[in-house]
């Protein structure tokens, strides 16, 4: 570890590793720090990801792919199933990842691009001079060090403090977070080609239960509930009830917990010398909770903008506005649309959700796009879903893809 770099990236998840790699490939001197001793562990993710979007950032590798997805099966509270599957031959559209291996592979890519990677190294505070972020105070194995940099990229996850240290309020309201628990289980008996979703206020208030195949007879069985509906019972209690009822004989091999921001895009993700990316910038999708692809998209843009700004010798908020503008153009519209959908759907009662599911019983889906599902729902339930009409105007305008 040196005392000075062009860029310090805090956090070696997908956002941080892609940002670091991108900046290093442009020729910048980059340090990537990770507070944990193992990159990618513990997992805080259901691990599903869209194939097309993933390929834009890394060539798929069997070492970190557990399952190929052909489609989704969504269950309403009364058990009505909506199946969405790709009809094209061999049309797997998504992967279920092994994040522990995947995250380390991304960090490895950044190391190969010239990034210096340090684990067990935690950011303690920012170094701020004349209103500019000038570096990071870190702790490594109990010793503190001051590291100066021209730009800091904060990819420090849902628990991010870097934004707050720089005066950007990134705190989340209970109604804007999904609180989640998940078990990796053997013996659920699910079809490994499908991901399963169970919706309903009784089983998962303000959220859903997911079952994602992990290869062999394994699956991630998890739940997210809206923070504002948690308290009396917590996410893990709802999950245990669901498993007790549906998979009493399945065996648990791993337990994961986490919080997923569903607040939609925040007002500000930059200041002089600083960019926030990924979950730290609350860029996860408010309806699916997916965050990997958005994190990688934003990380790539941040790496490029770091290079542009440093090349021009201007790392002020004005120069970094390029990052803010570009990530909003690329993923911001979809995040905002998903927020609108989330706000409509969390208000539905279980009988309303059942009636929505029944309205789709005769619809054949030839894709697993969430947008196709919403459009079919809208066509059949215009009165109930009238607020969604804006969405379908935007579809054409922004060419949205919900399958991230």
């Amino acid at each position: 570890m040196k005392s000075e770099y062009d860029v310090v990236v805090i956090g070696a998840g997908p956002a941080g590793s892609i940002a670091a790699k991108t900046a290093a490939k442009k020729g910048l001197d980059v340090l990537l720090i990770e507070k944990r001793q193992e990159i990618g562990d513990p997992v805080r993710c259901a691990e599903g990801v869209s194939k097309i979007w993933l390929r834009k950032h890394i060539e798929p590798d069997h070492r970190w792919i557990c399952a190929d997805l052909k489609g989704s099966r969504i269950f309403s509270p009364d058990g009505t199933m909506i199946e969405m599957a790709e009809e094209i031959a061999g049309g797997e559209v998504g992967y279920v990842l092994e994040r522990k291996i995947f995250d380390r592979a991304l960090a490895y890519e950044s190391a190969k691009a010239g990034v210096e990677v340090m684990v067990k190294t935690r950011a303690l505070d920012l170094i701020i001079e004349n209103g500019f972020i000038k570096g990071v105070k870190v702790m490594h194995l109990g010793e503190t060090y001051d590291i100066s940099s021209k730009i800091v990229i904060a990819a420090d996850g849902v628990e991010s403090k870097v934004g707050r240290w720089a005066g950007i309020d990134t705190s989340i309201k209970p109604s804007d977070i999904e609180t989640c628990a998940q078990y990796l289980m053997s013996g659920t008996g699910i079809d490994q080609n499908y991901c399963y979703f169970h919706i309903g206020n009784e089983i998962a208030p303000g959220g859903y239960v997911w079952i994602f195949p992990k290869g062999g007879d394994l699956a991630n069985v998890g739940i997210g509930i809206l923070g504002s509906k948690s308290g009396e019972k917590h996410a893990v209690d709802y999950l245990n009830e669901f498993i007790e009822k549906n998979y009493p004989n399945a065996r648990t091999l791993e337990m994961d917990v986490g919080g997923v921001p569903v607040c939609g895009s925040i007002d500000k993700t930059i200041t002089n010398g600083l960019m926030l990316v990924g979950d730290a910038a609350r860029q996860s999708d408010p309806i699916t909770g997916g965050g990997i692809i958005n994190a990688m998209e934003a990380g790539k843009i941040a790496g490029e903008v770091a290079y542009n700004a440093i090349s021009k010798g201007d790392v002020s908020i004005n120069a970094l506005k390029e990052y803010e503008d570009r990530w909003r153009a690329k993923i911001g519209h979809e995040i905002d649309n998903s927020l609108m959908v989330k706000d409509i759907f969390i208000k539905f009662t279980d009988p309303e959700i059942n009636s929505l599911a029944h309205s789709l019983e005769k619809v054949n889906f030839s894709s697993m796009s969430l947008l196709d599902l919403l459009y079919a729902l809208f066509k059949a339930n215009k009165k109930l879903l009238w607020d969604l009409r804006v969405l379908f105007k935007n579809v054409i305008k922004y060419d949205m893809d919900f399958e991230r």
Partner: protein
Amino acid sequence: MVTVVVNKFKCGYCGACVSVCPTGALELVETWIDVSEMCTACGICVRICPVGAIEVEK
């Protein structure tokens, strides 16, 4: 002083509590949650913890 206590035997150190803390009193260090004197014991973290590992200390 009122504050919150984290049951380290239950905690999965996911950091969800840190993100909802309105005063920035919590910090996910490596495998544990640090609670600073800025904690007002508002109880938001108690509510949202996925495993119910946090309690307000009376």
